[in-house]
């Protein structure tokens, strides 16, 4: 059985591509046969996040136009031989592909992979419509900011209107210290506002920047964000995993020093 999951957000810069790369890698670590597909035609990014930019020969548009076979365009990951990337085209634009062609492509890929992760472009235009066309399931990525949540709400509405049965939320870049001070919306606040099932939470973490710089997602740094992604992957496979808790309660010594500092 195969599942096609689209990673989307509406707003740009909330961590869709990072999430797609980490979920792809995480599922591969769990032994699943996985393909990650960059559907952002004209703005290719997933390849650099995964560190596979030097291996691209053919791309998604080549496969759809019949310039090559699917297997020729798929790039095997450096570290996991059950993880593949289908890169996007850099020279074409979103109108090069139709939703029907994307459905055909994901159906063909379903024969070879257990999970197909589609990295969706920002926005709600053609690129979004293409990306969600073949998806069974959607992961909406947001951050605890008003702009990202507003766009996530809009995207959830559009996904529902397009009959995507399973819609789940990832809240990215959580800052427990700011939530504790009351200067950031909490996970519960966001869930209450969006009224959607929570798939996972990712704390704001410098290690993600470092891993992306190096092109090695989930590189075993044992950082909070990596743990968050691993938990998400286990939940995707149907396992029940408790959510990360941010126990920022301070010891008596810290409390005392803060009191004096204030």
């Amino acid at each position, binding site marked *: 059985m195969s599942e096609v999951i689209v990673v989307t957000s509406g707003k740009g810069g909330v961590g869709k591509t990072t999430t797609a790369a980490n979920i792809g890698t995480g599922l591969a670590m769990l032994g699943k046969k996985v393909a990650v597909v960059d559907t952002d035609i004209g703005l290719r990014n997933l390849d650099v996040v995964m560190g596979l930019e030097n291996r691209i020969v053919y791309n998604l548009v080549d496969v759809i136009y019949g310039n090559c076979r699917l297997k020729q365009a798929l790039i095997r990951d450096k570290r996991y031989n059950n993880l593949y990337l289908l890169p996007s085209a850099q020279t074409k634009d979103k109108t090069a592909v139709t939703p029907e062609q994307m459905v055909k492509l994901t159906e063909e890929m379903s024969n070879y992979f257990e999970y197909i992760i589609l990295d969706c472009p920002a926005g709600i235009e053609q690129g979004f419509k293409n990306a969600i066309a073949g998806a069974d399931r959607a992961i909406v990525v947001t951050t605890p900011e*008003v702009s990202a949540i*507003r766009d996530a*709400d809009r995207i959830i509405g559009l996904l529902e209107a397009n009959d995507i049965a399973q819609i789940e939320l990832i809240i990215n870049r959580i800052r427990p210290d700011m*939530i504790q001070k*009351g*200067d950031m*919306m*909490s996970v519960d606040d966001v869930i209450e*506002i969006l009224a959607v099932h929570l798939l996972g939470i990712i704390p704001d973490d410098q290690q993600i920047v470092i891993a992306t710089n190096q092109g090695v997602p989930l590189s075993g740094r044992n950082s909070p964000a990596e743990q968050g992604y691993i938990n998400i992957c286990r939940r995707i496979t149907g396992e029940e995993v408790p959510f990360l808790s941010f126990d920022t309660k301070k010891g008596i010594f810290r409390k005392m020093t803060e*009191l004096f500092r204030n």
Partner: protein
Amino acid sequence: MLFMARNGLTKRRSGSVARNRLKTVLLSERMDCSTDTMLMMKNDLIQAMDKYLPVDRAGIQIQFQQDPPMMLARIPILQEKDSRKDYVKTV
């Protein structure tokens, strides 16, 4: 507690400001009804109630629920004899 009192009680923290702003804007977007229209609707509701019963305007809460779609208005009514205890009518 000292710093809580200094920061927390004097002004609302930005997290709850964000939450309330979002709730209002999403509500009007979901219902395809502008925030002005919603405010007018709220005022009309209060005026209609006020014709018959004294209404505690400060205590009015209007909520919208998504599934099933529903508008819930909590309009506390001031009681003349015992103004501390008020009935709540859900419309």
